[in-house]
């Protein structure tokens, strides 16, 4: 019974119904895309561990800190393993590629297990001082293969007096989650440090694995306290927390996202509310006829409510469906860098469902009540 009434209402103004569903689907598409990318915006990327502490220079995240800081961190109680990485800032215009080269300690793969390489490739890198492991994504993009030479112009001098650095590809590495980290090159720290004329004995990030995630905060505080007010002041914290803090420095991204989504859903509410009010107003005579022939007040109330639910949930399914179709396209367009960074979680679907229910209810309640309260005699008199 309801379906006949709802179909009659939905098809009465086909273009309006289509446009309303289209606007709602665009709103849910925006919701879906923002949600799927929230890991990037909020820094809560999968794979960032709570038991890994990052220690970096406090005032310049691309700066350096003395190597002795590594030894200090290693000496702390609760720290299981320590490694470190230095980024070779390079001149992109004079280099073979614009990716990052990191000088890492030999135990990087042991401490930072998100990064993985075969034993053969790890051994090859240790055997050859200028050997590097190339991220799988970068290697695929640039076509690097074992034995290739990679030349880059760094911002610090090689011992030969130039800024030119040359490496040989001896293998590849992969990253378990968030494959964007596969866009780099890992080289031997010892070789870099021994071969450079300036900044010797410094490193960039210190990465420490602690015995349990509960210790991460207290150890981080202890490290920062130790170097407080010195020229080697540090900024430390669990990797996942630090990533979120760093993103937060650009602004409260989560708040901005929530504001955008609130605006979107307020718009849906107005669009649907307006459509439903207009539809019920236009159908006053129809509703009066239905009441005349015996349809009850509550039946018509439910019919109007269900109509709103169908409109909103059609838009919801369409919007989230397009989102699901777009995610692989975005990943492909990013050349797989966003492989594990954009995804729709089950909580996003649940939130969308709850929003759908809420908006359907709020937007259709008044028009449905109007149908409920409609006096047949008055409505028929108005024609």
């Amino acid at each position, binding site marked *: *019974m309801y379906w*006949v009434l709802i*179909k*009659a209402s939905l*098809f*009465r103004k086909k273009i309006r119904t289509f446009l309303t569903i289209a606007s709602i689907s665009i709103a849910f598409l925006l919701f879906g895309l923002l949600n799927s990318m929230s890991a990037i915006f909020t820094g809560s990327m999968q794979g960032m561990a709570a038991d890994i502490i990052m220690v970096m220079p406090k005032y310049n995240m691309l700066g350096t800190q003395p190597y002795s800081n590594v030894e200090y961190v290693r000496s702390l109680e609760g720290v299981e393993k320590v490694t470190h990485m230095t980024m070779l800032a390079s001149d992109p215009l004079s280099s073979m590629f614009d990716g990052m080269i990191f000088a890492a300690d030999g135990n990087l793969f042991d401490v930072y297990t998100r990064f993985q390489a075969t034993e053969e490739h790890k051994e090859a890198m240790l055997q050859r001082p200028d050997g590097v492991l190339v991220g799988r994504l970068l290697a695929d993009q640039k076509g690097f293969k074992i034995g290739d030479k990679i030349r880059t112009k760094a911002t610090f001098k090689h011992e030969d007096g130039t800024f030119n650095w040359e490496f040989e590809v001896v293998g590849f590495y992969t990253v378990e989650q968030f494959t964007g980290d596969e866009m780099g090159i890992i080289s031997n720290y010892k070789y870099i440090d021994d071969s450079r004329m300036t900044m010797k004995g410094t490193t960039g990030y210190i990465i420490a694995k602690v015995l349990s995630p509960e210790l991460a905060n207290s150890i981080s505080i202890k490290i920062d306290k130790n170097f407080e007010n010195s020229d080697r002041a540090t900024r430390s914290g669990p990797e996942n927390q630090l990533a979120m803090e760093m993103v937060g420095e650009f602004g409260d991204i989560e708040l901005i996202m929530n504001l955008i989504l609130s605006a979107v859903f307020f718009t849906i509410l107005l669009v649907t509310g307006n459509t439903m009010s207009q539809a019920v107003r236009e159908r006053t*005579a*129809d509703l*009066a*006829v*239905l*009441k*005349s*022939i*015996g*349809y*009850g*007040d*509550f039946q018509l109330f439910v019919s109007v409510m269900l109509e709103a639910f169908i409109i909103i949930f059609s838009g919801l399914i369409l919007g989230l469906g397009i989102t699901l179709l777009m995610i692989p396209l975005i990943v492909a367009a990013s050349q797989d860098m966003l492989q594990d960074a954009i995804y729709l979680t089950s909580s996003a679907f649940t939130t969308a469902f709850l929003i759908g229910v809420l908006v359907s209810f709020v937007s259709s309640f008044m028009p449905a009540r109007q149908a409920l309260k409609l006096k*047949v*005699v008055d409505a*028929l*008199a108005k*024609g």
Partner: protein
Amino acid sequence: MSDSLVSVKAVNKTYQRGGEKLVVLDDLSLEVPKGDFLALMGPSGSGKSTLLNLIGGLDTPTSGSVEVDGERLDALNSKALSKWRSSHVGFIFQFYNLLPVLTAFRNVELPLLLTKLSGSQRKQHVETALNIVSLADIVCDEPTGDLDRDTATDILNLLQILNRDHGKTILMVTHDPMAADSAKRILHLDKGKLTH
């Protein structure tokens, strides 16, 4: 037990418009026997449609009683009235008021959706137009008001057939003397009272 299908007793219907009290039906009483075909005539605002609405269960009186086929309509609540309308009365509206996106078949089927009939039974009922014939009585508010003369004649003939051959009781409000002539008897209303 009375042989009347419709029994209206001492009915008053008033509306409040601002501070003014508008008397539409004034202590009106009327008996309509089963099988009657009654035309109600009168000037605009005389209360014809209001009386028809009360008999069709679309409205309730301010005071007095309206009894149709043994059921006191003035004592029924909105839900019970809806149920009663769905099974006892058929309406012919002046402007047809069909649901525009539904086919004629679906429009006729609409009241049957409220019954417990199966899809095939509904189909059968619609196809044989029994949904109209099976109703106890039919109320028509200006059924020919918006029609050309030929179509109006067809409708009036149809009403006469329903009344004569199927025993349907028909109450019709009209301004049209030709339409009124199709009825068995004519009553005139003026200022909420039956004049003759």
